[in-house]
């Protein structure tokens, strides 16, 4: 495919979500039913369009950039980076976003404010695509903030629920705390390397440890890692399709994606910090997922755990494995969330929105396998992918990461990773058991969700299955596109299968253990800690404000007053000396002109007199 075609297609995929959002905001309430259909179709077209450059360009890397602004000799480029990584990420974002849009047709059918909902879904998708395509980190940062803002608006979509607006504020504040560090890190990087262009940075530049850590703190906030992860479980107050989008493709993936691009730039110290934080988050969130009873919170903790797993891989240098896992995770986690959304939707229908019946509590669920067979199938496949059962995408990327971990020869790291491998099937089997397999806790007349909600789940489940290519190993869509050569030692394959089976066995044996309502203590502790952090930040901000008012504003005022006084003096001099000289000259000239002109007074006889006088003077001069 020629270069300009690729550029146009990428720009088209970037603009279609904006068009979708524009339509959603503009269409009148009377035609509100149009919005979901039109938005879904537009997103679907974008998802189809992105396939052309994805399939045609192969491993080609190209940057299309133009100067955005120049400050002195420094110029900032705005442009599109078209590499296999960005194209694949954009494709996954668009596919997941399309599925979420389609699913939302059924989900928000009785809700109000569909215009705002679909509008922000569109802007959210646009922001994430912009972040993916951007070739300059400064532009990336702009989109990064836009992603945060959109997630804030979407989490708070159910404004009538106080918990929703609180959760949105919490998400916004905590991610902002990370974003400040992110911006500082970017500026440090800019100062040290003199550029924020990704293509230049990734060829040879090195970020200092400080800059790397600052950038990483931003990623920690965005991707909900320890110690800034506690906004994500609360963000479950948002509509479930939004959760699917946040967890799979847009919000939390942004952090990992930026690290995927920047990981080669970091120093080993930064990378070790990334690994440490990743392992901690992965283990901690696995415990959280085991303790939670809310179906969406279990999935939220599972996301944190999986993202930690990816961060660990990134820190160890297994960038392609982490990226493949990010893409696989996008598919199966979106599938899991949409299934959960379908379950919640159906149960709401069945219980007629009884306020005292918590449909998200897994203790109230059960037996849905018979009532919602297709959703069950989709959920089971996605859960298998999450657990890393062979023949699913999750298995492939997990094996790659396990291989890298083994090469490090660090017993504690390897032990932690195997614990994660053991814990993941455990909690997801528990969720599967309580939701679908166990005998129903309540006798409810539950109907399968409508087709618009079943199809996206099935599509995402289909994307989570590996396929066999000719004379090769198992491949997923991502490994196939990235042309990864996967070589995994046999004992790791066997070991992971054994550990996963053991986890499932333990899960099966303990399936009927009573679930007690238990809090995940670390989260409460961190809530307190974050609250203190916010108080401290406010205090610092107030101090800065006073300092700003008193000293900086004061000196600026003094400077301004002195400038005004100087300006008055200059003005006086200008008026009286410079202007005076000029008008003096004009006066003199005017006087001379008057004298010269007085001869020409319009009287014929005086003209004659002067003419004769001139003639006489001429004659006298000629004769003598």
């Amino acid at each position: 495919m020629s270069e300009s075609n690729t550029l146009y297609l990428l720009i088209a995929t970037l603009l279609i979500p904006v068009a979708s959002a524009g339509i959603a905001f503009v269409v009148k309430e009377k035609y509100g039913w149009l919005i979901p259909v039109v938005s879904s179709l537009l997103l679907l077209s974008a998802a189809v369009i992105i396939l052309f450059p994805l399939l045609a360009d192969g491993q080609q890397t190209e940057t299309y950039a133009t100067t955005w602004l120049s400050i002195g000799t420094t110029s900032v480029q705005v442009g599109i980076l078209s590499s296999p990584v960005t194209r694949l990420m954009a494709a996954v974002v668009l596919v997941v976003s399309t599925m979420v849009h389609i699913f939302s047709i059924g989900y928000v059918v009785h809700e109000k404010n569909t215009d705002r909902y679909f509008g922000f879904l569109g802007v959210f998708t646009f922001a994430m695509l912009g972040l993916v395509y951007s070739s300059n980190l400064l532009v990336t940062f702009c989109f990064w903030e836009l992603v945060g803002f959109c997630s804030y608006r979407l989490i708070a979509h159910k404004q009538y629920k106080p918990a929703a607006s609180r959760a949105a504020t919490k998400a916004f504040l905590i991610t902002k705390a990370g974003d400040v560090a992110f911006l500082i890190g970017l500026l440090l990087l800019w100062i040290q390397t003199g550029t924020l262009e990704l293509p230049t940075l990734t060829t040879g530049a090195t970020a200092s440890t400080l800059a790397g850590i600052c950038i990483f703190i931003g990623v920690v906030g965005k991707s909900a890692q320890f110690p800034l992860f506690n906004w994500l479980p609360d963000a479950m107050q948002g509509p479930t399709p939004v959760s699917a989008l946040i967890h799979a493709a847009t919000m939390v993936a942004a952090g990992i994606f930026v690290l995927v691009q920047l990981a080669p730039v970091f120093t080993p110290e930064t990378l070790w910090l990334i690994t440490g934080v990743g392992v901690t988050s992965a283990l901690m969130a696995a415990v959280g997922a085991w303790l939670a009873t809310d179906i969406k919170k279990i999935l939220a903790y599972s996301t944190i755990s999986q993202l930690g797993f990816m961060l660990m891989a990134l820190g160890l240098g297994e960038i392609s494995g982490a990226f493949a896992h990010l893409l696989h995770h996008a598919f199966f986690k979106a599938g899991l969330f949409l299934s959960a959304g379908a379950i919640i939707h159906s149960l709401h229908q069945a219980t007629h929105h009884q306020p005292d019946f918590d449909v998200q509590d897994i203790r109230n669920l059960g037996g849905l396998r018979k009532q919602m067979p297709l959703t069950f199938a989709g959920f089971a496949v996605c859960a298998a992918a999450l657990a890393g059962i062979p023949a699913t995408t999750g298995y492939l990327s997990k094996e790659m990461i396990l291989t890298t971990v083994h090469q490090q020869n660090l017993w504690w790291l390897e032990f932690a990773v195997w614990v994660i491998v053991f814990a993941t099937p455990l909690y997801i089997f528990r969720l599967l058991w309580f939701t679908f397999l166990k005998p129903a806790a309540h006798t409810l007349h539950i109907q399968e969700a409508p087709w618009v909600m079943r199809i996206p789940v099935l599509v995402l489940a289909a994307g989570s299955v590996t396929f066999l290519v000719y004379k090769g190993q198992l491949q997923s869509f991502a490994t196939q596109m990235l042309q990864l050569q996967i070589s995994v030692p046999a004992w790791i394959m066997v070991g992971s299968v054994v550990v996963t089976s053991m986890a499932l066995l333990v899960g099966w044996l303990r399936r009927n253990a009573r679930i007690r309502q238990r809090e995940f203590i670390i989260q409460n502790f961190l809530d307190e800690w974050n609250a203190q952090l916010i108080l401290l930040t406010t205090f610092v901000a107030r101090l800065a404000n006073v300092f700003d008012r008193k000293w900086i504003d004061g000196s600026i005022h003094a400077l301004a007053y002195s400038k005004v006084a100087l300006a008055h003096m200059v003005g006086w001099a200008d008026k009286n000396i410079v202007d005076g000289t000029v008008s003096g000259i004009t006066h003199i000239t005017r006087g001379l002109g008057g004298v010269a002109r007085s001869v020409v007074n319009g009287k014929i006889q005086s003209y004659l007199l002067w003419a004769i006088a001139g003639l006489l003077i001429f004659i006298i001069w000629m004769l003598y």
Partner: protein
Amino acid sequence: MTETDFLFYLGVLLFSCGLLIVFTKKNALLVLMGIELMLNAANLNLVLFNKQQAGMDGQLFALFVILVAVCEAAVGIAIILRVYHYYQSAVPDRINNLKEHE
């Protein structure tokens, strides 16, 4: 002082009188008369110089001048009449359209 010198001085006097009339008189008709006086002073000079040499061309030229003066008077009076119609005045000082008005 011979008679001829006296007549020369008379010509000068006539010319000066005519010039003075042209410069000072308030009425355009009188200005025209001053011009006639100056022409006649010139005629007197032509006749006097003709007397000091052979031939009659000076006197003939004076006759021509008289003839031209008649024509000039006719054209001048006609112009003054038009000017009077237009400006309702024959005073040269009032006819100052060429002057820049401030």
